[in-house]
């Protein structure tokens, strides 16, 4: 009988843990989060068009302009973005060299393409004078890429590469996975409404051209955002309580669940704060106040963390399901069979 051996480069078997590689992916995910905050600072400071050209900055590709006024927000965002883009390429190259998992390799290629796409969206938003649709897409894709990079960091961790000590039964995993996906869906809706509100308000609202009455922007974006926040809060409470009670023996579920609850409390307070500084006090402000910038950037940042933690919880829920053959896409049955 002819024995067929899978070439090493095509193997789906788990890779050995590479500490340096994993730490690097964690670093890139952290920098991607800082990039999101830097982007939020640009919008909150109404500095999206402080540098009017793209991909150059004042006609130069590498020369750093005077970091003053709105330029310091916009150009810092661009520099961090270029750095994260470069590091994402390094992650892909490094992964192709050390990781034997084919899906993992292609995931990093996807991350590179996503980061490039995100950069192009950023350029389009500048060249088209921050149109809310493109600016909102830029915000949504940015948080998606943060989640992808955070997931890559999870996939390269020791705990992912080792067989879990504890697993859920398929029956227990079902509601957790189902509600995690639901939460991701509602978080995306929340993100689109929140980003839409921010960009329409900044472009057509009081700080911008003032073409849209404030009540119209609030009715279209903010009230649905607040309503959806209740659904998100309900799902977070359910998932948090479930992981803390039913799956407390699995730290990889319990810890994200606990963080979801902590972040939810923080986010609700920041949401109320953002409403006060933006809508109640901010309509007649001649310039963005420190409170407005601080609270709105924090609200956006915590929102990004909630989305990323939910994605990680979902991934870990699949990973810790007892009957992996029944769950996709994180199907490890073939990996085990071929190991």
């Amino acid at each position, binding site marked *: 009988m002819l024995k067929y051996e899978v070439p090493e480069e095509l193997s789906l078997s788990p890779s050995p843990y590479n500490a340096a590689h994993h730490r690097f992916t964690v670093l890139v995910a952290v920098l991607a989060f800082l990039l999101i905050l830097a982007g939020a600072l640009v919008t909150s*400071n109404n500095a999206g068009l402080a540098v009017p050209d793209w991909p150059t900055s004042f006609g130069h590709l590498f020369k750093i302009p*005077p970091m003053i*006024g*709105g*330029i310091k927000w916009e150009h810092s965002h661009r520099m961090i973005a270029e750095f994260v883009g470069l590091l994402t390429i390094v992650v892909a190259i490094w992964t192709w060299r050390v990781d034997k998992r084919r899906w993992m390799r292609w995931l990093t290629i996807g991350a590179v393409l996503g980061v490039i796409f995100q950069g192009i969206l950023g350029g389009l938003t500048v060249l088209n004078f921050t149109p809310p649709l493109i600016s909102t897409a830029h915000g949504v894709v940015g948080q998606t890429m943060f989640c992808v990079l955070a997931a890559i960091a999870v996939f390269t961790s020791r705990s992912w590469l080792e067989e879990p000590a504890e697993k859920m039964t398929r029956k227990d995993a079902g509601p957790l996975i189902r509600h995690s996906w639901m939460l991701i869906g509602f978080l995306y809706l929340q993100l689109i409404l929140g980003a839409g509100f921010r960009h329409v308000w900044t472009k057509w609202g009081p*700080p911008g051209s003032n073409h849209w009455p404030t009540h119209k922007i609030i009715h279209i974006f903010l009230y649905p955002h607040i309503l959806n926040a209740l659904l998100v809060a309900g799902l977070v409470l359910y998932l948090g309580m479930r992981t803390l009670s039913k799956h407390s023996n699995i730290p990889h579920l319990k810890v994200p669940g606990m963080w979801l609850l902590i972040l939810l409390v923080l986010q609700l307070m920041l949401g109320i704060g953002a409403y006060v500084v933006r809508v109640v006090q901010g309509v*007649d402000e*001649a310039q963005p106040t420190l409170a407005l910038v601080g609270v709105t950037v924090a609200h956006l940042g915590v929102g990004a963390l909630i989305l990323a933690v939910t994605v990680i919880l979902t991934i870990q829920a699949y990973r810790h399901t007892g009957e992996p053959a029944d769950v996709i896409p994180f199907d490890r049955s073939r990996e085990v069979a071929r190991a």
Partner: protein
Amino acid sequence: MKPFIAFAIALIVIGCTSSVKTNTVSANSEPATSHATEPATSATPAATGSISGVINFQGAVPKLPSLDMTGDPMCPQTPQPSEAVVVNNGKLTNVFVYVKEGLPAGQMTPPSEPAVVDQKQCRYVPRVLGVMVGQPFEVTTHDQAIHNVHPMPSKNTQWNETQMPDDKPIVKKFTAPEMMVRLQCNQHPWMRAYVNVMTNPYFAVSKPDGSFEIKNLPPGEYTLAAVHEKFGEKTMKVKVSAQQPAKANFDFSAGK
């Protein structure tokens, strides 16, 4: 044949007369930044009237927070007063007053002199101005700060250009009438000006003493409007005759 020749001659004469009037308007040396220019289709000055008045402000004046310009070392480093609401002795400045209704429809010939906005001490000067469709709109700078000039119209073309210290003026033209087009600098978010793009030259901006005057209006009944960036628009009917100036005072308050 003779009637046709007579008709053609009459047309030529009318055409020449119109072009003389147009030139008169274009040559008018009054800048459009502060008050109205000579109308393109007006009759002789003796046959025109004017509207003058005062913008009163009643009640408590809203206290606006000072502007913090310290984000750019090239801007004033001490707290600066806001110009969004300027009231002197009960008179409101920076109110744009214009003829909203009553004029024949259509575009009058714009003056060739530009309407100028200067950037001085990280502010736009003037804050409120009028410009006619097709009239050059010029943005100059006397600052050492880097500015980007970014009008945000809905009917005209949007643009966003950097203006470095000592750069030559940016000159543009608006192509469609539009009220209160906001001019913004994304380096300095407190910098705002309001450009009103008009089809006629019958407009004015209230001065620090609240007064305004619109000259050379053909006699007639008009709807006069006064618009302020914070307090919105008010209108009133005004009858203009060649014999005596018409008076029109507007009253604004924080409650509109």
